[in-house]
């Protein structure tokens, strides 16, 4: 069974590898956005004194790392499952002899791996060459970072899975999707580091699952969390992944109990 999910993940990887032009265009766009954001932070740090404990190298690294993680996290506009609800394809998919959620999760992790390598690495390398970013001092940090990023993708997938399943109840998921994506981008720490928020806002935001997608992997990379704190960060990510995937399964059960398949 594991072998099946491994194959599904590999297909997910290969499927996106087909679109070379799109990859190139995407890297260009992610890099340009990285540059624009970087200069805003440079202007900010010319005046601000170590906001949230960040120095300039930290915030520039944060900028290009978040640009790099943007595609692997795939926060915007994924409606593949919702589309199968509208076409009715989902009825056959649910019949197949594998676990529905695990199938899509494997596919998504394969996709994320592709996006990490082809869409994530180039903008980061360009940013590093131009702005001199901060790389981990400890070699093991790279490994822990990849684990943390994978957990981040899993949390992101669990949320997107539920947003997609809302198609069972709503005629058009685009409204809900764009609203959800907006909230996730802000509360995950993509728009601006959560550390820059006033204390109360910061505490509230960090008690929500969204920071597990982005802020935590970035903190791991910047080595802002270490020792026991590092363990508890990864544990929080894993816990949110389990809880949200579980919630998705409950939602799937509720959705399929009202599924009526026309014809046959």
């Amino acid at each position: 069974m594991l072998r099946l999910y491994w194959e599904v993940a590999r297909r997910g990887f290969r499927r996106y590898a087909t679109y070379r032009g799109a990859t190139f265009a995407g890297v260009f766009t992610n890099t340009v956005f990285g540059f624009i954001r970087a200069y805003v932070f440079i202007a900010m740090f010319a005046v601000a004194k170590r906001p949230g404990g960040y120095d300039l190298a930290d915030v520039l690294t944060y900028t290009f790392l978040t640009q790099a993680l943007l595609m692997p996290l795939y926060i915007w506009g994924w409606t593949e499952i919702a589309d199968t609800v509208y076409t009715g394809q989902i009825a056959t998919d649910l019949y197949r002899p594998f676990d529905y959620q695990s199938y899509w999760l494997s596919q998504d992790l394969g996709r994320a791996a592709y996006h990490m390598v082809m869409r994530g690495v180039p903008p980061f390398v360009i940013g590093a060459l131009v702005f001199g970013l901060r790389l981990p001092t400890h070699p093991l940090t790279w490994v822990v970072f990849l684990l943390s990023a994978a957990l981040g993708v899993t949390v992101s997938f669990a949320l997107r899975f539920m947003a997609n399943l809302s198609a069972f109840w709503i005629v058009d998921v685009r409204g809900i999707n764009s609203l959800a994506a907006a909230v996730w981008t802000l509360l995950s720490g993509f728009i601006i580091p959560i550390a820059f928020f006033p204390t109360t806002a910061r505490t509230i935001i960090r008690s929500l699952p969204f920071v597990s997608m982005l802020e935590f992997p970035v903190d791991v990379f910047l080595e802002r969390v270490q020792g026991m704190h590092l363990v508890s960060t990864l544990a929080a990510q894993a816990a949110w992944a389990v809880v949200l995937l579980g919630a998705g399964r409950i939602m799937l059960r509720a959705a399929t109990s009202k599924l009526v398949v026309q014809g046959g």
Partner: protein
Amino acid sequence: MASRAAIYGRLAGSRLRAQYQYRFSFVLQIVGAFALSFLDFIEVLVIFHHLPALGGWSLGEVAFLYGSSYVVFRFADMTMGALDRLPVLIRMGTLDQVLTRPLGSLWQVLTTDIGVRHVGGMVQGGIVFWFALTRVHIHWTALRVAVFVSMLIGGAVIFCAIWVATNAIAFWTMDAREVANSVTYGGNYLTNYPLHIFGVWLRRLLAYVIPLAFVNYFPSLYVLDKRSPIGSPVLRFVSPLVAAGAVVAAGAIWKTAVRHYRSSGS
């Protein structure tokens, strides 16, 4: 010309009625766009939580840039956003039908979708703009009013032209249209902040080759009576000219692109 406008109005009207059929989704999309764009302004507020001025510009002044950028950008997004669908039209062969009809190809493509949800973004931009106007002191003169009004019209026109010119890439290569996002959405983001904080090469490319500097930065310098380390004072008044030039350039690019187009044959 008058009849062409009437046809555009009629096509656009039919799109609006079609969207309005799904009322819940329609309202939710407008509310969503409103909330979504407000989240962007939180970035500005959080930055100013740590400092009194960014690049020498106060919160009110940056909000002035942000508000003006948002209102005109979302207007362009609403009217030109259908160009995002150009690759789909080309792939499905729908564009062939468009080219056989006796109405300009651009107008027909534009009316395949009217993004009314962007009204939500315009409203948000308007609120931030109003907030900015209560915080900055502008000595209104006839010339300032004229520059202010021409900034909004010129800015909208420049963004529309950028939208047309960059999306025409789809006629050459269909996957590459994400490049357009870096100057449309990227342009919106860039024009939220005073231009002189950006690096010199980025500025040359995005502000002068793509004329984003004339959307709001240079006219704002005059309206807000600000000094700037870059650009001659004359540039503060040329936005309408730049807008006119951008329209001509975008039109030429679109015509060349359509002429280049070979049907997929399907």
